[in-house]
């Protein structure tokens, strides 16, 4: 149905899922709890990529029903993308240290810095 250069077998799909799931896990595992809400809306934004799936379905629609559902799908997906982005951006902008021109305690702002530990 879509580009054959990206077609894959089920086993390969499992590999991709495994890698992606692992990536998601590692990337998030050290987020401080103050950032949970922006992170939630940020990842919400990312799954908005479903809009391109809906777009492809709509482009290939052959009946009124398909067009209607495809239209709804694209509308919802676009909302997810744009809404997720705007909301995340707004929230993160508040965390900008420059906002109050008081760059106080900058060392606390890098919670995950590499630290030489004792064995």
């Amino acid at each position, binding site marked *: 149905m879509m580009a054959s250069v990206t077609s894959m077998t089920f086993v390969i799909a499992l590999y991709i899922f495994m890698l992606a799931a692992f990536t998601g896990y590692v*990337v998030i595992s050290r987020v401080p709890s103050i950032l949970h809400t922006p992170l939630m809306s940020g990842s919400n*934004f990312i799954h908005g990529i479903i809009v391109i799936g809906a777009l*492809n379905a709509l482009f290939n629609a052959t009946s009124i029903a398909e*067009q209607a*559902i495809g239209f709804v799908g694209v509308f919802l997906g676009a909302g997810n993308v744009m809404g997720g982005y705007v909301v995340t951006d707004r929230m*993160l902008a508040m965390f900008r240290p420059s906002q109050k021109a008081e760059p106080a305690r900058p060392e606390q*702002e890098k919670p995950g810095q590499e630290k030489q530990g004792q064995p």
Partner: protein
Amino acid sequence: MFVEYCVGLSGLVASGLFIYGLKAMSSPVTAVAGIVAAGYGMLFVVAATFLNLFNITPEARPNLLVNVGLGVVALLLGSLWAGWRGRTVQMTSMPQMVAIFNGMGGGSAAALAAVELLGNHDIPLLPLSVTVIGALIGCISLSGSLIAWAKLDGRIRKPFRFSGQRAFNAALFAATVVLAVLTVMRYATPSAELPRDLFFGAALLLGVCMTLPIGGADMPVLISLYNAFTGLAVGLEGYIMNDPALMIAGMVVGSSGTLLTALMAKAMNRSLTNVLFSNFGETGGSSKGPEGEMTAADPADAATTMRYGASVIIVPGYGLAVAQAQQKLYEFVKILVAAGVDVKFAIHPVAGRMPGHMNVLLAEAGVPYDMIYDMEDINDSFATTDAALIIGANDVVNPEALTDKASPIYGMPILNAYKAHQVFVIKRGSGTGYSGVENPLFFQKNCTMVFGDAQAVLSKMVEAVKALGST
């Protein structure tokens, strides 16, 4: 072929940027750059999708113009509406907004699955099953998120419960699964449409029924869970679309969302099953305890005491968010600081109703970082502080959590506001907090209640201290 390569590689770039963006979002310093990078990735991949117009199926070619038109209109409508809502929504309404956007994603995945199942494409068993599973998860996420939104937005005020509800939900779930199986086997049955349509209906209903009995206060956890659901649905639909970018983005969100949900539940001292099935958030929400010994004062008196104190620690809580009083609070604080009082903010990790809620609120009001302290950093300072001002917080300063093993919040670390020389509490009445338990702090000798809406009380306080002048 060339077009296919371009589209395939655009997805590669986009998924790389998404992952980079998510990683960057793990620290406030890099987070803004991260979301911007992810945004460019999205723009790029959506633009590249239009290249697929050179590649559509022959049957769809007559509809080309209409389809493109519909696509562009839908894109514009969706993004304009959501962009406008996202720009204008108040910070306190953020959770319900995220719920809507998340539901939209789930709906989009479900719609995509529906289109796949509409046309009588000859889908083999495996992709067909994946499509249906994705549709199921997407539908639950869609309708569940909408209910979550309605609850958080105050449209549904009471959790809807009846006896045997759990059995009913289990039966509904079983029925949905049966319909899903029938849908997968549709090629074997003469009438293909009926089970499919029923399946979608049942899946949507399931999302509603799963969410209705859960208390409004538990919604943030639930939204995070549905976020992971949508991710999973997107990933699965990506497989049937042969689009690795969808698979990766979806799966990354699916797994990170699951982890995030678990972390949130843990920060609230709860387990996920507990959130989903025990309805703790609502039990005893209106129980009244002994009121006899509460001491009340009026705002002006309390404000004057603080004005002439040497040091004040402010403990904001959910009530501050409800009253939208963060600006007034900072106004009050600025006057105190100008008068030479040493003012600090103490923030409990789960104050409010979403993680980082108070940090977002105070940041919005313009409170600088260096006045805000974490629980661990400030807990020892209460004992040497003249006054603690508690605004709309309750559970996070409940000393019962330290002492009473029978208390539902036993074991949760709290802010030691009760140790301050003098404690002022701004709240509307004797309502309990999220956990529904009485707070013995309010009956302590050194505690003075200032009843009223936080916004109103703080306005009066500001007036009172302004009247005193800055001497």
